[in-house]
């Protein structure tokens, strides 16, 4: 189930339940919803708040947002 998967890097601006907002270095912001297939759980998302991450995602149908399948914290994270 890796068809159509893309990656995006940026800083997590805010986290609510299983949703988070990512801002790229160009200033674009994207909303992600953590997939039920992802290895992470919503309660783990608070740890990535304000950190640089790489998200693997697919487009979601009929919403303005993406489905996050994995979230990787980058080493050069800002704390």
């Amino acid at each position, binding site marked *: 189930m890796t068809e159509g998967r893309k990656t995006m890097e940026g800083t997590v601006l805010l986290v*609510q*339940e299983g949703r988070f907002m990512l801002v790229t270095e160009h200033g674009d912001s994207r*909303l992600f919803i953590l997939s*039920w297939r992802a290895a992470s*759980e*919503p*309660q783990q998302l608070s740890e990535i708040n304000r950190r640089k991450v790489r998200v693997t995602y697919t487009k979601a149908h009929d*919403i303005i947002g993406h489905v996050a399948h994995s979230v990787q914290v980058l080493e050069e994270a800002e704390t």
Partner: protein
Amino acid sequence: MSKGLPLSKRVLEYPDSRLPHMMPDEAELTAGIRVVSGKSYGFFTDTTVCIGCKACEVACKEWNNLPADHLGLTGNSYDNTGALSANTWRHVAFIENLADRPTGMPAFQSNWLMMSDVCKHCHNPPCMEACPTGALFKTEFDTVVVQQDICNGCGYCVPACPFGVVDVSKLDGKAHKCTLCYDRLKGGLEPACAKSCPTDSIQFGEVADLQERARRRVEELHGLGVTSAYLYGTPGGPGATGGLAYLNAFFLLTETPETYNLPEAPTRPANRVAASLVSGLAAVAGLALAALALFVHPD
């Protein structure tokens, strides 16, 4: 129109537009109450002053980081949100009264009914009763919230809700609904939808105070000739039937509940458990007797 809340003297503490820090107990300035644990909070939605601006929907999505959904046009209404869902926790319903059109409607008068629908935060919440994992719980503010880390997505809460509020997202597999801005309440803030409402159609406060305020509003409307005004969800009234006791988020309506897509007499599914159990046991007993009659022959 009601006179509104008296302005808190605390506004004098903040003469500048730029604030050096977050206001403590901000709800005192915006809603006239201090949010305290252990008290019962809710919404009073006065549909007679709703203008359908959908500011509440937008504020809800902004604060809760919810995605816009139902892209495109429904084709049957100016309301393109459609319904409450896992991604839409406030929904302003546009209902056009067609009964007296076209000749009976006064000139230059709109015949639209607007109502901002939301989770009712029932006093006896059926969704919570149905939840097998305890993900749905009552908060210290007497509101009903889904704990995302505990929800297993079984969906039992969905048919249990008599108002069709709870929805399970196919994307994350969890149940979602209005939290009455639980995180904001914990920070002393008024819920985003009520704060954004420009006409005070959505009023936030302690449930007992809101119920009293709503009763006065109904009397006021009756005095103005709007005799059809009534409360939906207050104790003893429509919407608070079937063991629900009362709704923390209740409404002032001027048409039948069905007009607003609200059930006339909602009930707790738990009321039917005893009857279902008895009928189930009776069916088993009947089948057992039938089997005995068929297979056991007296010799």
